[in-house]
C-alpha cells in the first residue's frame, strides 16, 4: 500500500466514521435542535463522501438539496413546532426507562445489529467485477444529445423516471397545500445586514443556478442542482422577510410550478400521438430539447422548493 | 339460443326480474307491485307447465354457461327437478296471493316482495341445477335471500333468529363448498347424472375420502334440511311473517336441503355406489332419529308455529329416510313426500297465519273453539293435520304407505316401527288442536274482535289455505292418475333404479 492509498483510506475512514457518529448523535440527541444541527453537519459530511466516491453530481445535489434546503426546512419546522408545543418538555422528554421499553429497545437494537452484520457480509460478497451499465451509457452517449453521462441518463435514457420525480415534487407541494398550508409566520423586522445579503446573493444565485444548468449538459450539474440553487434563492427571499406580491402567488405561481412537468408531459403526449416511443427524442434535436426541458424543470423545481419552504398554501380564494 | 336453452332461463327470470324491479318501487305503488308479483308467478307457472309438457315428450331443456375453464353453470330440467319446480311455482303463486293479503299496510313491502321473488328464484335455481356447483350457487343465494325475510319484522327476536339462521346456514354452506371443491379435484365432472358419476372412475377407489366428502356434503345440506342436530335455527325462524314461514318450511329452505340430499345420494354418488360405501345406513339412522326427536319436541310446544316448526323437522326427514333406504318403493315415498309435505305444511302455516293475523292467536292454548269463528280456516287446518298424521286418503298417507312398504322391501322392518311411532306422535300433537278448535268452548281474548267482514277474513288470506287443503286431498285421492306427484315420483325412481 503506497502512501497515497493510505492517506485516502484514512480520509475515507474518518469520513465514514464521522458519518456514522453524526447520524447516531443526531438521532439520539435529547434536544431536537441539536439533532437538526448535527443532521445538517451529517449532510455536509455526506457531500464530502459523495466526492470521494466519484459522484460529484450527487455531491452537488446533496449540498444544494440535502444541506441547504433540508436544513432550512427542518429548522423552520422546528420553530413552528415551538408555537404549538407549549413547553420544550416533550422535545427532550427523558427516554422511558421502564423494563418493557428497555427490553423493546435492546431487542430492536440486537435485531438491527444482526441485520447490519448480514448486510456487511453481503456487500463484501457482491461480485467485484460487476460492470453495471457504464458501458451501455458510454456507447449511447453520442445519440443522447448531451455529453454528461448522468444528465444523459436523467433526461434521456431514464427520462421517464425524471418525469415522475418532477411530479413527486409537485405532489409534495400539492400535499402541503391540501393540508391547508401553514399559517404565515409573523414577519420579523427587517434586518439591514440580512436584507443586503439577500439583495447581493440572489442575483448571484440566479447566475449560479443557470451555470449549473448549463454545466449539466457536459459536466456535473443539471436541472435538479440548478433548481435547488434557485429554490435556495427563494428561501433566502422568504427568510429576509420579503413578501411576494399578491398577483404573483396566484396563476403566475401555478404556471411556474407546472412549467417543467407540463412541458415534459406535452413532449410525452406528442410522442404518443406521433406514434413514437414514449419520450423518444429526435436524435438531431435531442440536445436543444433537453436544455429546454431542463430550463422549464429548473424553474419549476426552484419554485416548488421555495413554495415548500414557505408552505403557506396558495393565496387565492381556494385553500384559504 | 333456442327454446330448450331459453326456457330454464325464462323460468328463472320470471321471478328474478320482477323481484329486482320491485326493490326500486316506492312503498306506495301497491298496484304495480301486486301486478308484478302476480304476473311473475303466473308466468312462471305457465312456463313450468310448458316445460313439463316438453319433458314428458322427451325434450331436453338445458342452459349452460362457462363459469370456470373446466366448470359450467348448468340449468337442466329432468323429472326430479320438474317435480320441485312445479311445487315451487304453484306454491309461490299461492303464497304470493297470501302474502299480499297478509302484509297489507305493513312497512317495507317493496323490500319484502323483492326478496320474496329472489328467494323463489333461488329455489327454482336449486331445483333446476344441473351440477353441484350450480346447485351450490343457488343454495347460497337461497340463504342470502331468505335472511332478510326472516328478520323482516326487525324485532330483537327476529334479529336473533336471523343470526342463528345465518350461523347454521353459512357454516353449512362452507362445509358444502369444501365438499364440492374436493369432489371437483377428484372427478372430471360435477354434473348430476342418474346413477351418479362416481362408479367406475379412478377416484372411486378411495372410499375413505369419498365418505368424508359425503359427510361434508350431507352436513352442509342437513343444515337446511334440518336434520337433528343441525335443526336449531328452524324453530327460531318461525318469528318471520307467516307467508315466509310457509315458504321456508314447505318450499324453499328445508326442501332445498332435502332436495340436495336426494341429488347427492342419487345423482352424485349413485344409490348403489353410496350403499356400497356404507353411507346410506347412517343417513337412515339420522333421519329416523330426527323424526322421533322432533315429534317429541313438537308435543311440548304451546306456540302454534313452533309446534308446526318441529313438525317440519320431523316430516322433512321422511324424505331423507325414504331416499336413504335402498330400494325403489321407499324412494318413491321419499320423493313424493317432497310435494306432499310441502302442500300439507303450507296449508297449516297459512292457517296459523290467518289465526295470528285475524284473531291474534299464537298459542295452541288460545285456540279453544276457534273453529266456530273461522270454520274455513280450521277446516283447511284439519285437512292438513290429518294429512300429516297419515289419515287415508290424504297426501301424507300415500307417502307413509310407500315408506312403510319400502322399508319392508328393503328389509328394514324397524323403520315401520319408527313410522308408526311417528304417526302416533303426529296424532298426539295435532289431534288435541283439532279437537279443541272444533269442540271446546271458545275462550281467549280473540272473542272481543268484532267480525266486520262478510268472510271470516280477507279473501286473499282464505283462498290459499283452502286451495292447498284441496290439493292435499287431491294428490291423495288422485295419486294414481297420470301426472300426479306419485306418478312423477315413480318416473324419477325409474330413471334412478332402472325400469
Amino acid at each position, binding site marked *: 500500500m503506497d502512501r497515497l492509498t493510505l492517506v485516502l483510506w484514512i480520509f475515507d475512514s474518518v469520513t465514514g466514521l464521522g458519518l456514522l457518529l453524526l447520524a447516531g448523535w443526531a438521532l439520539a440527541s435529547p434536544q431536537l435542535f441539536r439533532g437538526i444541527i448535527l443532521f445538517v453537519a451529517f449532510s455536509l459530511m455526506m457531500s464530502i463522501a459523495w466526492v470521494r466516491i466519484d459522484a460529484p453530481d450527487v455531491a452537488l445535489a446533496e449540498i444544494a438539496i440535502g444541506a441547504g434546503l433540508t436544513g432550512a426546512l427542518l429548522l423552520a419546522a422546528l420553530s413552528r413546532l415551538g408555537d404549538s408545543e407549549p413547553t420544550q418538555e416533550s422535545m427532550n422528554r427523558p427516554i422511558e426507562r421502564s423494563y418493557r421499553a428497555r427490553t423493546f429497545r435492546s431487542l430492536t437494537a440486537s435485531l438491527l445489529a444482526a441485520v447490519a452484520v448480514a448486510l456487511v457480509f453481503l456487500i463484501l*460478497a457482491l461480485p467485484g467485477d460487476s460492470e453495471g451499465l457504464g458501458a451501455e451509457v458510454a456507447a449511447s452517449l453520442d445519440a443522447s444529445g448531451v455529453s454528461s453521462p448522468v444528465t444523459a441518463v436523467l433526461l434521456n435514457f431514464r427520462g421517464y423516471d425524471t418525469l415522475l420525480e418532477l411530479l413527486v415534487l409537485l*405532489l409534495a407541494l400539492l*400535499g402541503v397545500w391540501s393540508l391547508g398550508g401553514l399559517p404565515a409566520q409573523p414577519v420579523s423586522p427587517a434586518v439591514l445586514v440580512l436584507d443586503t445579503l439577500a439583495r447581493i446573493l440572489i442575483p448571484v444565485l440566479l447566475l449560479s443556478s443557470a451555470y449549473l444548468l448549463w454545466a449539466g449538459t457536459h459536466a456535473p450539474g443539471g436541472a435538479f442542482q440548478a433548481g435547488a440553487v434557485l429554490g435556495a434563492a427563494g428561501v433566502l427571499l422568504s427568510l429576509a422577510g420579503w413578501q411576494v406580491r399578491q398577483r404573483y402567488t396566484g396563476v403566475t405561481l401555478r404556471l411556474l410550478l407546472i412549467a417543467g412537468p407540463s412541458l415534459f408531459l406535452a413532449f410525452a403526449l406528442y410522442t404518443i400521438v406521433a406514434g413514437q416511443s*414514449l419520450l423518444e427524442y429526435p436524435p438531431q434535436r435531442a440536445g436543444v430539447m433537453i436544455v429546454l426541458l431542463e430550463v422549464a424543470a429548473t424553474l419549476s423545481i426552484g419554485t416548488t422548493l421555495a413554495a415548500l419552504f414557505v408552505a403557506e398554501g396558495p393565496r387565492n380564494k381556494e385553500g384559504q | 339460443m333456442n327454446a330448450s336453452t331459453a326456457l330454464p332461463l325464462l323460468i328463472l327470470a320470471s321471478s328474478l326480474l320482477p323481484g329486482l324491479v320491485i326493490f326500486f318501487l316506492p312503498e306506495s305503488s301497491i298496484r304495480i307491485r301486486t301486478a308484478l308479483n302476480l304476473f311473475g308467478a303466473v308466468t312462471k307457472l305457465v312456463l313450468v307447465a310448458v316445460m313439463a309438457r316438453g319433458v314428458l315428450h322427451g325434450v331436453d331443456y338445458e342452459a349452460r354457461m362457462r363459469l370456470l375453464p373446466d366448470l359450467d353453470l348448468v340449468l337442466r330440467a329432468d323429472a326430479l327437478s320438474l317435480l320441485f319446480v312445479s311445487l315451487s311455482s304453484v306454491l309461490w303463486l299461492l303464497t304470493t296471493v297470501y302474502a299480499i293479503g297478509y302484509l297489507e299496510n305493513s312497512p317495507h313491502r317493496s323490500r319484502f316482495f323483492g326478496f320474496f321473488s329472489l328467494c323463489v328464484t333461488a329455489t327454482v335455481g336449486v331445483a333446476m341445477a344441473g351440477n353441484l356447483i350450480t346447485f351450490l350457487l343457488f343454495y347460497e343465494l337461497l340463504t342470502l335471500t331468505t335472511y332478510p325475510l326472516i328478520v323482516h319484522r326487525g324485532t330483537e327476536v327476529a334479529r336473533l333468529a336471523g343470526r342463528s339462521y345465518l350461523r347454521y346456514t353459512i357454516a353449512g354452506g*362452507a362445509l358444502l363448498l369444501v365438499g364440492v371443491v374436493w369432489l371437483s379435484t377428484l372427478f372430471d365432472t360435477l354434473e348430476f347424472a342418474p346413477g351418479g358419476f362416481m362408479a367406475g372412475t379412478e377416484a372411486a377407489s378411495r372410499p375413505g375420502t369419498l365418505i368424508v366428502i359425503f359427510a361434508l356434503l350431507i352436513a352442509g345440506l342437513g343444515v337446511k334440511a334440518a336434520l337433528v342436530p343441525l335443526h336449531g335455527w328452524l324453530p327460531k325462524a318461525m318469528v318471520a311473517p307467516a307467508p315466509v314461514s310457509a315458504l321456508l318450511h314447505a318450499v324453499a329452505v328445508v326442501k332445498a336441503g332435502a332436495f340436495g340430499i336426494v341429488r347427492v345420494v342419487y345423482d352424485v354418488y349413485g344409490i348403489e355406489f353410496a350403499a356400497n360405501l356404507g353411507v346410506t345406513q347412517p343417513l337412515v339412522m339420522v333421519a329416523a332419529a330426527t323424526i322421533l326427536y322432533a315429534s317429541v319436541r313438537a308435543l311440548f310446544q304451546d306456540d302454534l308455529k313452533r309446534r308446526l316448526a318441529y313438525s317440519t323437522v320431523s316430516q322433512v326427514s321422511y324424505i331423507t329416510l325414504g331416499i336413504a333406504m335402498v330400494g325403489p318403493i321407499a324412494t318413491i315415498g321419499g320423493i313424493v313426500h317432497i310435494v306432499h309435505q310441502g302442500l300439507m305444511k303450507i296449508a297449516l302455516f297459512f292457517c296459523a297465519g290467518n289465526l295470528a293475523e285475524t284473531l291474534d292467536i299464537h298459542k295452541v292454548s288460545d285456540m279453544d273453539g276457534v273453529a266456530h269463528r273461522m270454520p274455513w280456516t280450521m277446516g283447511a287446518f284439519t285437512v292438513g293435520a290429518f294429512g300429516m298424521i297419515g289419515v287415508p286418503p290424504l297426501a301424507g298417507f300415500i307417502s307413509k304407505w310407500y315408506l312403510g312398504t319400502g322399508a319392508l322391501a328393503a328389509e328394514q322392518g324397524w323403520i315401520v316401527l319408527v313410522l308408526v311411532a311417528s304417526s302416533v306422535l303426529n296424532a298426539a300433537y295435532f289431534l288435541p288442536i283439532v279437537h279443541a278448535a272444533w269442540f271446546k268452548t271458545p275462550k281467549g281474548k280473540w272473542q272481543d274482535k268484532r267480525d266486520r267482514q262478510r268472510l271470516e277474513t280477507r279473501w286473499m288470506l282464505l283462498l290459499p289455505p283452502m286451495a292447498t287443503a284441496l290439493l292435499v286431498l287431491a294428490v291423495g285421492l288422485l295419486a294414481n292418475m297420470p301426472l300426479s306427484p306419485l306418478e312423477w315420483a315413480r318416473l324419477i325412481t325409474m330413471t334412478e333404479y332402472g325400469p
Partner: protein
Amino acid sequence: MEALAATVSWDACLIVLPLLGAIACFAWPNAAKKLALGTALAVLVSIASLTIRVTAAGAFRHAVGAWGAPLGIELLVDGLSLVMLSATAIVGLAITIYSAGYFKADVSSRFWPLWLFLWASLNALFLSSDIFNLYVALELTGLAAVTLTALAGSADALTAAARYLLVSLLGSLTYLLGVALVYHGFGSVDMAVLAGRVESTPVFWAAFSLMFVGLALKTALFPFHFWLPPAHASAPAPVSAALSGLVIKASFYILMRLWFEIVPADYSTFTNFLGVLGAAAVVWGGLQALRAKRLKLLIAYSTIMQVGYLFLAFPLAVAAAWRGALYLILSHALAKSAMFLAAGNILYCAGHDRIESLDRIAQRLPMSLAAFAVAGVSIMGLPPSGGFIAKWLMVEAALKSGQWWWAVTLVLGSLFAAAYVFKVVGYAFTQAEAPHTSIDVPAAMEWAALALAVAAVLMGLIAPWILASMEIGRAFPGAAIP
C-alpha cells in the same frame, strides 16, 4: 382516424393522460371536476383500446425513449398488468363519479389533482417492468395516498396519515436497498434482463428479502398491518376505497411480478412462512373486524384479512392458486371499494359510522346498505361473486396439492367475513325511526357504490374470459390444473 388509433400507444396514454389531467386540475381549480371526469373517460377509452389490442395481438413491451432495456426503461403490457389496469379504471371511474358528489367545494379542488396523480401513479406502477422505476412510482403512489388520507383533516386522519407516510417511506427505502443490491449483483434493473441473469445466490435472496419486506409493509401483510386500519378508517370515503381497493394491491402486484419474473426457485420454508403470516392475517383481521365498533374500521380490518388470503398463494404454488389470488385482487378491488363508498354514504348522511347506531340511518339509505351487502357477498366468497371464483380456485389448489390446512384457513376466513358482514347488514332490518335531520346523499354516490358492488358479484360470471386474459403473455408459475 383509425390509423391514428392504431399508432397511438394507449399504454402510455394511461400514464400521461391522468398526469395531464392532474396538472390541469391544479392549474384551473375551478374547472377541476369537469377536467377530472373528462380524464376518467379518456382513461377508460385508453384501457378499452389497450385491451382490444392486447387481446388481439398479445403482450408487448414498450421501450420508453426507444432505448430499451437494460439502458432504458421498458413498459410491459401483458395480461397481468392489463387486468390490474382495468380494475383500476373501473374502480377509478366509480370513485371519480362518487367524489364529484362527495367533496364540498373547498376540499374538492384539492382532491382532484391528488386523485388523478394517484390514478396515474397506479397505472405507471402496473405498467413498469423496471424495478427502479417501480420505486419512483411507489413513492408517487405513497405520497398521493398519504396526502389524500390527510385530506379528511381530523386529528385521527392526520395522525394516521403521518404513520402511513412513515411506513410508506420505510417500505420504499427498504425496497430501494434491495434494488441497489440487485443492480450491483446482476447489473440491471429491468425485470426481463434480470430474469436471464439472476441466480439463486445469497445476494439475490438478501436483496429479494429486502424488497419483499418493503413491499409487504406497503401491502400491510400481518404483522406489518398496524398502520392500515387507522389510515383506511379515517380517510375520506372515496380515498379509503382507493387505498383498500387499489393502493395496497399495487405493492402486492410488484411482489407477484418479482416472484413470477425474477425469483429463480421456490423455497417451501419461505413460502410456508408466508402462508402462516397470511393465515395469521386472516384470523387476526377477522377477529378485529368482528370487534370493530366503527363501520370503516371494520372494513379496514376486513382488508387486512383479504390481504392474508393473497399470501396463501405462495405456499400453494400452483397456477390455479395464483389465478385465484389475482382474481381475489380484482374482485376485492371492486367489492371493497363498494363497501367503503357505501360506508361513506352512511357517514355523509349520518355524520358518524358507529355500527350500533346504524339502524337509524340504514332505513334512509337502503341502496347504500344494499351495496354494502352485495359487496359483502363477494367478500364472503359466496357464489356467483368474483370472490367465490377466487376462493374456489384457491381451495381447489389447496386440496389438489394436498395442503388442506390452507383450505381450512380460507373457509374459516369466509365464516369470519360472513359474521362481520351480517353484523352490519343486520342493522338494516331494525325498526328504528328514521331521523328527520339528515343530509340527503346525491344519487350518483349511491349508484356508484351499488354499481361497483354489483360488478364485483357479476365478475363471477365472466371468469373464463378474465382468466384467459390474465395469462396473456405469461403463464403463472406452478403446475397447471390437469
